[in-house]
């Protein structure tokens, strides 16, 4: 039993290491995903920075307001990239060899999606360095820890979504679908403005979108104090999404092996 668990851990770690090695081997494929959230943060702050003049805006520093969106964007792009990499492995036949190995399906999934949780630390680190250099308020240790943990877990959830699509379509051509899905999930929230200042349909969509709760939990330390009241809805939303995505991804893996 113990050796079985040890084997599972070793297999998971090997798969994670393989995914992380790709950063060094194919840096050109990683750089856009690392840079994109920072570019978006700076760009959106420059373009929409004056929105803070609107009555009811909860902060007067738009860069501070938008930086947490970059955390989730980084997680989303990393998750989508995980899906694209799996699709490539399926196309090249590497994944068939993994399916034929004695590693349980859960281990294959864990190794794949947990690598996204680690890889997301790259865009997050860059975001924080650039953000702090440009004057973003430090969210406090508790705020930063909560933000990084939530973004890291969200990357795993986004990676599960990428895995589901990769197993369904078995081609890298599905990449736009993976990217568009997570793009919508992150931006159809209170990403640009507080709930009360959103207009039209987005106000309703943001209210129903569980990622809004995750974003607000990530954002709390940046725009105010960290409180349990702002944290638990994010944790709950993340847990719900996680259960759903892991369930579908495992089902896809089981079908892929049949």
């Amino acid at each position, binding site marked *: 039993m113990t050796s079985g668990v040890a084997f599972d851990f070793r297999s998971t770690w090997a798969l994670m290491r393989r995914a992380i090695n790709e950063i060094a081997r194919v840096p050109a494929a990683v750089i856009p995903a690392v840079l994109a959230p920072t*570019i*978006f943060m700076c*760009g959106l702050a420059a373009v929409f920075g004056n929105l803070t003049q*609107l009555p009811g805006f909860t902060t007067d520093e738009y860069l501070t307001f938008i930086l947490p969106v970059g955390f989730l964007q980084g997680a989303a792009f990393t998750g989508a990239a995980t899906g694209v990499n799996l699709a490539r492995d399926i196309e090249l036949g590497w994944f068939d060899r993994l399916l034929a190995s004695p590693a349980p399906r859960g281990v294959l999934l864990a190794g794949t999606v947990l690598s996204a949780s680690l890889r997301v630390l790259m865009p997050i680190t860059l975001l924080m360095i650039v953000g702090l250099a440009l004057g973003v308020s430090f969210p406090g240790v508790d705020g930063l820890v909560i933000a990084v943990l939530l973004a890291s877990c969200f990357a795993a959830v986004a990676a599960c979504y990428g895995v589901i699509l990769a197993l369904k379509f078995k081609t890298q*051509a599905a990449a*736009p679908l993976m990217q568009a899905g997570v793009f919508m999930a992150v931006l159809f929230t209170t990403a*640009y403005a507080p709930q009360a200042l959103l*207009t039209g349909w*987005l106000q309703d969509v943001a209210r129903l979108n569980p990622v809004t709760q995750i974003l607000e939990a990530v954002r709390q330390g940046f725009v105010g104090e960290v409180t349990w009241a702002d944290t638990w809805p994010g944790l709950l939303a993340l847990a719900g999404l996680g259960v759903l995505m892991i369930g579908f991804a495992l089902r896809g893996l089981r079908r892929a092996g049949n």
Partner: protein
Amino acid sequence: MSAGAVAPPLGARIVAETRVVAALGRRSVRQAFRRPQFLAPIIIFPSLFLAVNTGGAGRAVDLPQFPPVNGFLDFQLAGAMLQSTMLAGVSAAIALALDIQIGFVDRLVAAPIARWSFVLGRLIATGVLGLIAGLWFLAVGLVFGAEIVAGVPGALVVLVLVGLNAIAWGTIGAAIALNSGSPSVAQGIFPIVFVILFLSSAFFPENLLLEPAKTIAEWNPMSLIADGLRDPIISELSLGPVLEGLGGIAIVAAIGAVLSARGLNKKLRSA
């Protein structure tokens, strides 16, 4: 050509080259529709961005310095079209780089056709995709309540500018593909498109941008194109902004053409 052979008359040569360019253009358009990774950046991402910008920053029209518009969607349509045509240029770069990688361009270079025909075919296809994107965004705008103040003539002007801008960005795409020959390099241009757009008046009025974006936007030719595209949508048709838009397109096209010519020469020397 053998010693006794007579070159075909100029008219026949032009007709033949036109047929080649049209065939290559058709191939490029079909390629975009067959492969979602080429079409998605042109239609899906700008549409999503338009939706997010409109819903998320729609209250911006309440800012005192915001120019008079019927709605924020009306203002954003030009930005979406601009983004779409620029990404069409990047998609064209990826497609052309793939053609270089698989040897298709080498076969065309060896064929008895003008050396520039495969670039021109790709540019025309990019222009067609730009027009399709323009029609798409005008339709989306009208469906969701935007108004084109300059009416049908204004819409036609917008479509002409969108098509020309797509061709101009197609030359930039061709330059990237011919000089690098790598789809990965072309793919890496995507974030730069956003940087260029964020540093222009594509998504927000120039006077409301924060520094240093505001100063850069004043010098960015994309601001000229954005304002030219936007003018017929938010006000009556006037010559000045349209000419400024054409001027911005000419600057982009000139840069792209020079770099493409350099890349093509490099490619031909190595072929």
